[in-house]
């Protein structure tokens, strides 16, 4: 294939180059749309001192929670955390730095990071603990704070389908933070359910163009559900 073929065949290759103290941007919302195999690989590698930006931090035995027992995460930037006991313990003990960020600000920070926008003003967080130490400015009669963008040494992303060139399609609400994360990594690694040949995806329906993707791997997903909620048929 061509120089645009992003497919790798092993998780070792997928995460090669990840080193201690790097920053990782991760897609996913709760356990929905998370790159399960890439997280497992980081656990296996035992990389330490990571700063992780992700909306959540998984549960005790799944998702990013897997990186907690061996203290691989030094700092987490997230909007909602603490769905697991080990996280709580490490946070309370001061072993884990937690930077809480409003969900929309976090999403926009990742987008801005990928888009060459170093900082933007937002009304979110004005007058709250989030505003501490940040510039506040009144623009056209309303108060805003200045938020800086986020980028990572690595971005780990979960998509539904991809072609070999790294063009991505997401499915349902498993899209969530994944498209922004994909733009914000120096090296962006994507784990997908299905890889097709270039030309098989409708160019109009591609959610993330392959230019953002460095490595692509086909994964097997457990897709655990956090809140299984049903109605009677």
């Amino acid at each position, binding site marked *: 294939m061509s120089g645009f073929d992003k497919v790798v065949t092993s998780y070792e290759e997928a995460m090669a180059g990840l080193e201690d103290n790097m920053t990782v941007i991760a897609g996913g919302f709760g356990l929905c749309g998370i790159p399960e195999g890439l997280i497992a690989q980081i656990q296996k590698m035992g990389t330490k001192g990571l700063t992780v930006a992700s909306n959540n931090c998984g549960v005790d035995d799944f998702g990013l929670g897997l990186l907690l027992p061996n203290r691989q995460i030094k700092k987490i930037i997230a909007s909602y955390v603490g769905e697991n006991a080990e996280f709580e313990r490490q946070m309370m003990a001061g072993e884990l730095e937690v930077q809480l960020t409003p*969900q929309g600000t976090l*999403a926009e920070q990742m987008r801005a990071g990928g888009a060459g926008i170093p900082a933007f003003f937002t009304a979110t967080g004005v007058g709250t603990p989030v505003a501490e130490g940040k510039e506040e400015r009144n623009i056209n009669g309303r108060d805003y704070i200045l938020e800086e963008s986020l980028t990572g040494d690595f971005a780990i992303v979960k998509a539904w389908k991809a072609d070999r060139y790294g063009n991505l399609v997401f499915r349902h*609400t498993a899209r969530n933070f994944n498209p922004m994360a994909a733009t914000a990594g120096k090296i962006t690694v994507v784990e997908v359910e299905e890889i097709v040949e270039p030309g098989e995806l409708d160019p109009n329906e591609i959610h993330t163009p392959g230019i953002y993707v460095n490595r692509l791997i086909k994964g097997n997903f457990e897709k655990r559900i956090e809140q299984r909620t049903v109605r009677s048929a």
Partner: protein
Amino acid sequence: MALTREQLAKRVAQELQDGYYVNLGIGIPTLVANYVPEGMEVMLQSENGLLGMGQFPTEDEIDADLINAGKQTVTMAKGASLFDSATSFAMIRGGHVDLTVLGAFEVDVNGNIASYMIPGKLIKGMGGAMDLVAGADNIIVTMTHASKHGVSKLLSNCSLPLTGRGCIKKVLTDLAYIEIKEGKFHLLERAPGVSVQQIIELTAGELVVPENVPEMNI
């Protein structure tokens, strides 16, 4: 009698209009979806990337790729659309959602809201709440008027760290429907069987009481 959770939801539902795009927070707000008036359609926004949230799935319909902001499995309504989180919050923060309903620990006479953090307790985070209160023009806060111990949650100044500054104009409690303007609470309606006196006693912030305070029609 203080309103039940279902009655709170019913009263909020009276504020809906046909064609409204609505974001409902976790808890009581979620129940509002059950009381959309007959012949009216609203579309529910779920901030994890879904506009047009449907009911919970049947066993057969469950799809791990389709959840709401509370991480519950859901379905899509007719005419739904899916998008990423940045787009979802662009929608919210750009003021495109017609009505946002969410809970709180405290609100005050200046429209401040505290809803995500009790210092000393475990802090789980604000999720999308700070974006929702900063982005929406039309917000209804639902909560109990006072704690179990009779401590008012409608204050002169919020005591807890804020979720948003000066952004709340309407509060529905189990006792009263209250508007916030010009640095004061204004009593609009009282729950059936609840006296104005009871409300005054449980409201710590300055409360303006008109001559006639109608009972809610639920």
